[in-house]
């Protein structure tokens, strides 16, 4: 359906009316061809692998950092409010704004991009962890304590599973923040990756390559959501009994 509208828009505006120039707006077929070409060249595979590598490293680091920061905020009871608003403030700052810092600290390389990816989702993860733990129903906490849970085992056996639904929802968001940050970083630093394929398209005035990489970026975003996060969420919902249509 979307493809049809796209094709129609192309036909009307570019072919008949000539308002848009062909180099401004590619037809879907050209984009599909481009994707195929990039894929058979091997460029796409290398780019995706490189991007994913940075993403996995960066996202992993930000998960750990987010959990640590989130828990530390909860421990620092008196400063909790001001720390939360500080994080909120930092969260509104687009992560790409940190790129100059990153480049100064790490140079024009992978580490700088990974830094931007980490910054992109750490704050959102920390806020998620903080609010997830604060929203745990008091009766569960009472039950866990009366059964003798405390200290580290309490975190592992109680706080992680009880907050998992909220954490996974937060992870989904954090993943998209990071993914955006990664693309921006790759475009500016111009290291091999999907973002760079896009910027190459711009430099070669090849609009279909630009759109092709955009399509691939969206597709990978969707794919990860489908294959990773929705699978985890489904597993949780099945256990917790919050599935609406589970065919029972």
């Amino acid at each position, binding site marked *: 359906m979307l493809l049809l509208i796209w094709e129609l828009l192309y036909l009307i505006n570019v072919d008949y009316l000539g308002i848009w120039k062909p180099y401004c707006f590619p037809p879907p077929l050209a984009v599909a061809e481009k994707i195929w070409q990039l894929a058979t060249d091997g460029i796409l595979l290398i780019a995706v692998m490189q991007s994913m590598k940075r993403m996995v490293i960066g996202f992993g680091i930000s998960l750990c950092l987010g959990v640590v920061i989130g828990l530390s905020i909860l421990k620092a009871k008196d400063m909790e409010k001001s720390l939360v608003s500080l994080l909120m403030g930092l969260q509104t700052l687009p992560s790409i704004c940190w790129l100059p810092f990153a480049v100064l600290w790490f140079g024009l390389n992978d580490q700088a991009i990974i830094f931007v990816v980490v910054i992109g989702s750490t704050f959102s993860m920390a806020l998620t962890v903080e609010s997830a733990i604060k929203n745990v129903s008091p*009766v*569960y906490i*009472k*039950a*866990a*304590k*009366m*059964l*003798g*849970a*405390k200290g580290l*085992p*309490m975190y592992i*056996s*109680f706080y992680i*599973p*009880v907050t*998992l639904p909220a954490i996974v929802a937060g992870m989904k968001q954090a993943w998209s923040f990071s993914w955006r940050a990664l693309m921006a970083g790759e475009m500016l630093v111009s290291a091999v990756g999907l973002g760079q394929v896009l910027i190459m398209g711009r430099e070669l005035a090849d609009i279909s390559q630009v759109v092709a990489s955009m399509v691939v970026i969206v597709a990978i975003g969707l794919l990860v959501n489908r294959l990773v996060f929705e699978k985890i969420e489904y597993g*949780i919902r*099945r*256990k*917790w*009994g*919050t599935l609406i249509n589970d065919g029972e």
Partner: protein
Amino acid sequence: MKLILDGLSKEFRAKSHNRVVLDDVGFDIRSGEFVCLIGPSGCGKTTLLNIIAGFEKPDRGQVLLDGKEITGVATEISVIFQDYALFPWLNVLENVEYGMKMSGISRAARREKALKYLKMVHLTKHQNAYVHELSGGMKQRVAIARSLASDASVLLMDEPFAALDYQTRRILQAELQNIWQKTGKTMLLVTHNVEEAVLLADRVFVMSVNPGRIKKEYRIDIPGNRHFGNPLFAEMVEKILDELMVEVEKAAKEEYDSDWHLEKNGIRHFAAADLGIAVPDKR
């Protein structure tokens, strides 16, 4: 183990006025005794349980378990909540095992003991089910098994059957009695249901509202079976209900408009006779 409550007081401070929730509440519970605590909603029953369980601190007074002061949450005292508080990410067996896992008991020993208590509440068939797959009555059975398996010697129950339908409640009351006789645990059950209290308890305490105090103690040593066919049972229920109704009315007068009062001569029956038994706890 013997449980001693000594001069427990607790105030809640609000902006406009302080409310005395508990005022010098004290009584002893013998080891293996079954005590019921009854009172209108808002009389501090739940606060009292929270203090005994160590979830809250009293302003004054102390809780002694076998002579030792309880200052925080102790695994010797276990709570059975009205809304079960079973962990939804664990299946039935894992829920029952949770306390033992926390105290570091080996996997095999854990499993064996959990199955033993699941058998006691007749739920071994559902050991692999998740919590949402169970009915309310089944959930409460799991919660009972969980508390028993954690080796607590005192079980505190906060309106454990209030959310269940009448028939299920009757069955569970009978089974709770069985379990109590088999295990010899010390039981303190909070309820608003006079019939339930007289059915189960060795002693019943009626609490007054605002300030929350122990108003009266009843020793339930009626001969014969405890059901309404036994006039002594009915008489005891009636007696406690009368006492309770004074408090219920007092509490209601504070909640409703100033012109509220109970119509004493209803067409069919004395309306108050229903209140203590059937009115669900407003929360």
